[in-house]
């Protein structure tokens, strides 16, 4: 661990990301991005797949201090490849001094990361592309009204899963998909734990090759909770074991935080309107038990 990142006090107190972006009040994705940008620094190019964050840089306004490139939903990793190649060629030909190199970051939501853009991502990892893939995961297509995505969790109500028991499938495991590709680095983070996040970004930026930062992004309108609770919801996701904080480095998965004692998942679920139908008008005992048992099984394996 970088000894410079031991305590909250070691985090930057001035912020690089400009205020005034069009993200919703209390956006958990913006929270993670603003913390991550402070550590990556201004010499970063964001290659943004269509998503909520499309609205970050709407001409002539941008919260970034450097370049931002917009791509279609499926092609952020391909865009990052183009940026990386261009920089390498310019530096190789002596047309750009090496100290003016930039970090290419693909920035996408969970729809692009786990669904529409997965194939381009897989190819980029195969090619060993030197980039960071930052996925802010609000567990649905938030920009268009929270339709379900492959990252939507079991039981959640979305605009397209309105049945009595909510979303019927379980959340696709993006971290495991990345690990199966044996990348240089992969980590899960949440803006509500800025110190854990900072240590992982610090580690990732020192490495070369494909790197995943998967940030849970509590979404006040999409998950239906008061924006003031965005940080508390993120903390509860960790404390209930729903969102494991972990990293993959040197071929091993390490959990950076093992919740102990682990709170019941209901503590997390009952704070969000998207799960209200599991509690009212009567408890959906079966779905609640399935969600809890999935989380229990995960941690039983981790702690075995």
């Amino acid at each position, binding site marked *: 661990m970088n000894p410079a990142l031991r305590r909250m006090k070691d985090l930057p107190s001035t912020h690089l990301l400009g205020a*005034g972006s069009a993200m919703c009040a209390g956006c958990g994705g913006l929270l993670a991005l603003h913390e991550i940008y402070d550590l990556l620094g201004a010499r970063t190019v964001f290659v943004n797949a269509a998503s909520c964050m499309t609205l970050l840089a709407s001409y002539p306004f941008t919260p970034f201090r450097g370049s931002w490139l917009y791509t279609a939903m499926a092609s952020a990793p391909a865009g990052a490849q183009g940026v990386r190649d261009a920089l390498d060629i310019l530096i190789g030909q002596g047309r750009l001094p090496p100290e003016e190199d930039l970090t290419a970051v693909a920035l996408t939501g969970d729809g692009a990361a786990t669904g529409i853009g997965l194939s381009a991502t897989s190819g980029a990892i195969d090619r060993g592309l030197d980039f960071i893939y930052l996925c802010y995961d609000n567990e649905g297509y938030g920009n268009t009204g929270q339709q379900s995505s492959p990252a939507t969790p079991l039981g959640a109500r979305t605009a397209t899963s309105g049945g009595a028991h909510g979303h019927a499938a379980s959340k696709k495991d993006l971290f495991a998909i990345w690990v199966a590709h044996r990348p240089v680095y992969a980590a899960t983070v949440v803006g509500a734990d800025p110190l854990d996040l900072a240590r992982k970004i610090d580690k990732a930026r020192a490495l070369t090759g494909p790197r995943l930062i998967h940030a849970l992004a509590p979404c006040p309108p999409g998950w239906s909770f008061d924006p003031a609770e965005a940080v508390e919801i993120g903390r509860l996701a960790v404390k209930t074991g729903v969102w494991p904080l972990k990293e993959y480095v040197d071929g091993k998965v390490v959990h950076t935080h093992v919740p102990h004692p682990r709170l019941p998942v209901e503590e997390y679920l009952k704070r969000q309107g998207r799960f209200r139908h599991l509690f009212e008008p009567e408890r959906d005992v079966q779905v609640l038990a399935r969600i809890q048992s999935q989380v229990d099984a995960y941690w039983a394996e981790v702690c075995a």
Partner: protein
Amino acid sequence: MYRIRLHGRGGQGIKTGSRILGSAFFGAGFEVQDAPVYGAERRGASMAAHVRAARSPIRERGVITRPDLVALADETLLQVPAANVLSGVGPDSVLLLHGNGDAETWRARLAFSGTVVVLPAAGEHAEAELGGARCAGAAARLAGVISRQQLMAAIAQELASLGPSATETTTAQALAAYDAVARHAGVLRESRPAAAVAFAAPEWIDLPLESARIAAPDIFAAATSVEMRTGLWRTMRPEIDYAHCNRCAWICSTLCPDSAIRVLADRSPEIDLEHCKGCMICVSVCPPHAIRALPERAARARELAAAP
């Protein structure tokens, strides 16, 4: 044809209001169009929706540039140029204002030549959230061609998927607004369809081809988003009690998603009210509870009172 534009903030139900009004007109036998303007419908951000209703087929499309009625759910949007609340109004237009104050003062303040109808807002949270439905109820009465039953049927139809309690609250608010403007019933008149001869081409400005550094210098500038005053989205305002602030490890500053809390040299946090969207995360994460939440309206009233 009735051309009605609803304005408000994301979260007030402006789109829902336009659907209720559209369905109510339809129930009253009109041909109808209703549509929100797609864009950044963030909670608190400026939002608009359009309703056209006519007794014959509607061939107009797109946004309403010359509204007969502008229904405004949140008067504070009048200060936001980008909201374009009064765009295209004329002496025959009606402005329905969901807010405080009297109609004559508003007419004078806005130099508005048409009719102003004020729908009093109690300013309570639930009422503000239902601003769209309240505007729809009042607009229905101003047109004078929609009955209470038709309004109630439209609400029941539009909110069916949200359950009986949402329908009940919305109906109560919309009917209260419908009754509150009773003495203005019929003030809203249909205007004639736009004639092709009256079409005025937009004025074009020809710009010479310049290099990007001259023609669009902003694309080379950093963090220009600060020009966007997102502080105008706020309905609640955080206020730091410096006597109780620990000067801690800038927890509020780190956890503010919008980079709207900076830390000064003496380690005191300072909230940037020009950009704070009022999410109130800082209020809930401050360890010594040294930040409190004030309704924005009250905070502004206090500032006005304190001004010399």
